């Protein structure tokens, strides 16, 4: 009960400072938006493009897709091999232009471009580039067909004519022909997960300053002079911080889902990742708040530490592009485990059992840090 009173006062004090609302709720969402728009997932997607060799229309669309700067196109020959690489996450999407592509289109049939991806970030960008290329070509083809129908000319000749007059005919309503199939990636997904972890930890660490303030002001001591046990005080402060970080985590998850269609994967599993990560952040924040005596020092250290850990743990640059040794180092940070967990949930549609290791590591980190900080905080209180 007193634990709740103390936790509630932490929340009340935090939100009394209006700027905290900006830093905790608004800024992360703005950053997810900006970074998602600018970088997609924060790195260039790699797309394998398989196209028939001597097909003029296929050649055209290959050129317009591969000149896109939104992703890197890797030529490939074998569909199965490319899809296997996709499953291993070595590439982000596979585009297959069928062998009879030009033939079908010229015959007035629809051709379907196959598009494979895991539900990865950047998929959205790749897909929209392919769609745009198809739309562009479809306009030309429609115009060609129109010309052929009208003039009884050979469609291939008419197409040449149409390409010449394309500019003026492109205004005809164009439907995208050629289906796009495959996964439903979103450029914000993994970026959002990275930002989520970065900000939760940042909030957890910076909230240590309020703890130091309570101690410095003697309010913590005064709590101990009331019929409230040291355990309840430590518990209340810990719970308050945990609730703040959870509140932020849940808000970011929901807001990014609603605003940017971010898919977080299995909801139960995602909630567990947020909870265990919040636990770890809380423990780290409590430890910082117990060890430091000056708010300025702790605040500076919190921001520096949170950004360092985020960078090291793959919350700025994805772990995929880390060299192997760095990946090992990265896994000393809770962020790496959180990012791994979200990658499994978001990209591979994993569930709780698939991220059991990550959850266990984060929980262990959290409990160990909270235990350690409780000891330090209690000592500080009564000595």
């Amino acid at each position, binding site marked *: 009960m*007193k634990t709740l*009173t*103390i936790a509630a*006062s932490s929340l*009340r*004090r935090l939100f*009394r*400072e209006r700027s905290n609302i900006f830093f905790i709720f608004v800024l992360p969402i703005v950053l997810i938006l900006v970074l998602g728009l600018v970088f997609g997932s924060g790195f260039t997607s790699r797309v394998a493009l398989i196209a028939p060799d001597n097909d003029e229309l296929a050649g055209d669309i290959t050129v317009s897709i591969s000149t896109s700067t939104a992703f890197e196109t890797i030529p490939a020959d074998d569909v199965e091999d490319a899809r296997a690489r996709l499953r291993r996450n070595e590439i982000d999407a596979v585009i297959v232009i069928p062998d009879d592509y030009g033939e079908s289109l010229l015959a007035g049939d629809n051709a379907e471009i196959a598009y494979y991806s895991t539900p990865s970030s950047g998929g959205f960008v790749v897909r929209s580039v392919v769609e745009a290329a198809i739309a562009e070509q479809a306009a030309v083809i429609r115009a060609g067909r129109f010309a052929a129908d009208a003039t009884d000319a050979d469609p291939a000749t008419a197409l040449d004519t149409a390409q010449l007059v394309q500019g003026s005919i492109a205004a005809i309503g164009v439907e995208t022909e050629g289906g796009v199939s495959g996964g439903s990636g979103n450029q914000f997904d993994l970026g959002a997960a990275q930002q989520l972890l970065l900000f939760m930890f940042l909030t957890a660490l910076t909230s240590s300053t309020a703890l130091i303030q*309570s101690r410095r*002001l*003697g*309010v913590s*001591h*005064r*709590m*101990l*002079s*009331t*019929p*409230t*046990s*040291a355990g309840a005080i430590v518990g209340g402060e810990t719970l308050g911080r945990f609730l703040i970080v959870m509140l932020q985590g849940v808000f970011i998850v929901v807001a990014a889902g609603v605003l940017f269609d971010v898919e977080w994967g299995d909801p139960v599993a995602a909630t567990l990742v947020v909870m265990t990560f919040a636990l770890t952040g809380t423990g780290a924040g409590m430890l910082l708040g117990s060890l430091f005596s000056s708010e300025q020092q702790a605040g500076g250290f919190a921001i520096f530490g949170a950004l360092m850990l985020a960078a090291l743990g793959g919350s700025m640059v994805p772990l995929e592009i880390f060299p192997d040794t760095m990946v090992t180092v990265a896994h000393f940070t809770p962020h790496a485990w959180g990012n791994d967990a979200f990658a499994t949930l978001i990209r591979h549609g994993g569930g709780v059992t698939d991220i059991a290791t990550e959850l266990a590591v984060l929980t262990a980190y959290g409990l160990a840090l909270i235990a350690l900080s409780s000891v330090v905080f209690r000592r500080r209180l*009564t*000595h």
Partner: protein
Amino acid sequence: MADAVLECSGLHKVYGDLVAVDDVGFSIAAGETYGLLGPNGAGKTTTISMIAGLLDNDGGTAVVSGNVITTKSTAAKAAIGLVPQDLAIYPDLTARENLQFFGKLYGIKGTLNERVDEILDIIELSDRADDLTKEYSGGMKRRLNIGIGLIHKPDLLILDEPTVGVDPQSRNAILENVERLGAEGMAVLYTTHYMEEAERLCDRVGIIDEGSIIAEGTRRDLVAMVGERDRLHLELSGDASVVEGSVSAIDGVDSCSAAGSALEVVAVSASRALPEVILAVNDAGLDVHSVQITEPDLESVFLHLTGKALRE
């Protein structure tokens, strides 16, 4: 003392090589105000912290309302109201919220809101109750700091230098409140290095220096203990040396010395000696122009005991 609210003995606290508190013991009865008077660093706050169960002691016991107090004796702390030396209030909460917060920690349930209003009234902050305390003046913060310690009507109120940095008006209000609480039957432990406050408020005073209580008792006891006498300084209408002999002979006068028209008299009690001194002066055909009486105070007691002033 059977009805002692606080009884402590042998309190001891060591910081490294420094013995901050050394074998401190005293007791306070209900309705009694006890002063711990001592200079900066004497060990007042450290002593109080052990009594209030904030600090693990290195020896000794403190019993409040029949319960031994340690940092872990949670329930027993309900009998104590502590007003710390440094303001211990949340600056980003209002006075009302601060009072409610600590009221809940003191375990006040149904009557909390009424009690908060009562306290706001006592500390005269009702009209500013819903402003953030960081916008308060120093005196207002001090008053709230005290109010929090009273919220649960403790048996023992501990005030650690509550008037430091307070304007004279707030200071007077604080002292009046403490006097009233004592009169209402609360046991009060009051630390200060202001001799006047100790003299005005406290039924008994413990003089503490370098971690030890070096003297204890009522103001009179303390003064008598060191044999200090009242001093009378008289300005006469003529040469004072003519009355030197007759004044010295007055019962209760220790010594008398003349310097021009000034007469210095040292007596056991100024009030008892003064009428006879004036008679002796008049008998010699002189008038008394002015009299100044200096009673020995705790300041001079402290000076006598330690060889140093209470405040540097």
